[in-house]
């Protein structure tokens, strides 16, 4: 997919919105006003956006516990998400899902998922639907290096291959499964696993939006053409802990500061597009301000929102007791 100015602005706006959303949640969570816990995606924006730019609402994605970025990239409304995270009635799941279960079927977003490795089998099913009903859609599973060690993921790679499903498996390898390094926990490597299951693997620098976008384009086109599944192994970094409140003492001193300074995907994007005179700093700055404002509005909206009514406890499920 050749990118025009509008595409570039969309990519930057979406990545910036995710960053603003997550940086703001980092601040708001510390106030204690948000129930439960959240897992932030800041730092990994190029992956979600680089992949989802190739998708439309007929295409499906399954996400992870670190799902906010995938949701925004797939077009879920920021206000509905923020309200959901605050447990509000007008949240995208009516306040009954929370951060780890944001879903919007109308956008092809099959849900963040509180179970590591929960998504890949679902994506096999979504891809099967596309294949049987001939919708032309593809299905994409985002999962982490931690989930790459789940049997569900490995079984799904095999199933997708033997059924020749229009599926893409995006392994977002941020180097840590919770507090354990993927250099410790992953045997053999992702590309070798893909090869073992008979699918191509594209090794991608996840700090480089354009690299992700290009590789994802190849994998998604391959799926759409009926040529079967692929894997993307996207190396990237998360800027915050596994969850908010994680002191991240397992990381090297200064590790995140160095990555932010040298590899940040948004800064890199700005440099590339301005040096090539595709976009200018002024319009990018305007996007920054608009994204900050949208997130600010969503936080205000969420804080002003009301929780679900007591009667909602018993709706949306069969209940007899």
């Amino acid at each position, binding site marked *: 997919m050749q990118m025009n100015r509008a595409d570039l602005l969309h990519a930057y706006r979406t990545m910036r919105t995710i960053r603003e959303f997550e940086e703001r949640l980092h601040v708001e969570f510390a106030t204690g006003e948000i129930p439960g816990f959240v897992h932030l995606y800041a730092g990994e924006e190029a992956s979600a956006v680089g992949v989802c730019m190739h998708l439309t609402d007929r295409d499906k994605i399954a996400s992870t516990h670190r799902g906010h970025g995938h949701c925004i990239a797939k077009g879920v409304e920021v206000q509905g998400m923020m309200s959901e995270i605050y447990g509000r009635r007008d949240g995208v799941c009516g306040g*009954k899902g929370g951060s780890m279960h944001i879903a919007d079927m109308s956008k092809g977003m099959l849900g963040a998922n509180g179970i590591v490795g929960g998504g890949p089998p679902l994506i096999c099913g979504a891809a099967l639907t596309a294949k049987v009903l001939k919708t032309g859609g593809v299905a994409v599973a985002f999962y982490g290096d931690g989930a790459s060690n789940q049997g569900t993921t490995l079984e799904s790679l095999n199933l997708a291959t033997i059924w020749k499903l229009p599926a893409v498996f995006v392994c977002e390898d941020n180097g840590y499964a919770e507090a354990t390094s993927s250099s410790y926990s992953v045997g053999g490597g992702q590309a070798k696993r893909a090869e073992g299951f008979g699918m191509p693997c594209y090794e991608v620098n996840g700090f480089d939006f354009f690299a992700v976008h290009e590789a994802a384009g190849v994998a998604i086109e391959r799926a759409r053409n009926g040529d079967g599944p692929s894997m993307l192994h996207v190396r990237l970094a998360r800027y915050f802990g596994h969850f908010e409140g994680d002191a991240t003492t397992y990381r090297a001193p200064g590790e995140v500061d160095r990555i932010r300074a040298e590899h940040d995907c948004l800064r890199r994007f700005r440099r590339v597009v301005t040096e090539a005179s595709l976009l200018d700093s002024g319009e990018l700055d305007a996007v920054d301000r608009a994204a900050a404002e949208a997130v600010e509005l969503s936080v205000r909206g969420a804080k002003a929102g009301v929780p679900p009514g007591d009667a909602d406890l018993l709706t949306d499920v069969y209940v007899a007791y």
Partner: protein
Amino acid sequence: MSKKSYRAAINEALRQEMRRDPTIVLMGEDVAGGAGAPGEQDAWGGVLGVTKGLLGEFGRERVLDTPLSESAYIGAAAGAAATGLRPVAELMFVDFVGVCFDQIFNQAAKFRYMFGGNARTPMVIRTMYGAGFRAASQHSQCLYPLFTHIPGLKVVLPSSAYEAKGLLIQSIRDDDPVIFLENKMQYDEEDEVPDEAYPIPFGEANLTREGGDVTIVAFGRMVKIANEAADRLEKQGISCTVLDPRTVSPLDTDAILECVQETGRLVIVDEASPRCNMATDVSALVAQEAFGALKAPIRMVCPPHVPVPFAPNLEDLYVPNADRVEAAVRAVMGFKARELA
């Protein structure tokens, strides 16, 4: 209407529903059999032949043999259901749920509620349960109380061929995930089964027999065992009501309570392991809602709390039978209040 086996009734329900609705697909281990093999296609049609012949009519597009990867294909069924198909997945033996339970109870069961009503998951998991097959500890369990424990699932226990056909049709048409449990000892049992498609609604118990002395609530295959005992007791002047709840989620609590109000005595027959099973669940219900109607303590006829043994003599000792039901009914009939003192 003609005589059909439990196996044939299930096969007919699948065939008729698949003809009606092109979004229904079957998936499971050897639901056809022979995929990629040099010999016969549809070689098995399910390990006990329940889905035999469906491949010929519907093809491999809709009758999908899976690898031995329950996590992947049960999860795929959930993902397919959430995106527009109506899959019927076969989990060969319910004992295998251990390797794919997450896909059932954390994923499929929760989508509708957790996503605020914005998702539906119309899938059926057909699975075999029950002892008596000399199949030992890992192929003989009941396990339906596990599913009953999970909000969001519907759980179905057909007690005969007639029940199996109608309840499976309802299961397929339902928009929630349904666990449909087939007793492997009953596949050859015959019953009068209508040729046309008919749904049996969930949550409406079937009064298989009416009597004034004792209510017997029995589940799945135990309905036949309970009626066998009731036949014998009838000859001895004890008349029993035998109630088949048909589905344990939803459970027809009204029917259970009405029967207990009428007879004042309750025996529950449940083949599942005795702790936290349907018998304890129904006992709690009656103790809470109909305590005043009881003329005697409730009796539960269940297996002992042990894994299902292999040796035929031990397995026969394990499974509840008509003798034990008969003894339990006699015990509640013989109860005198002064025994409590």
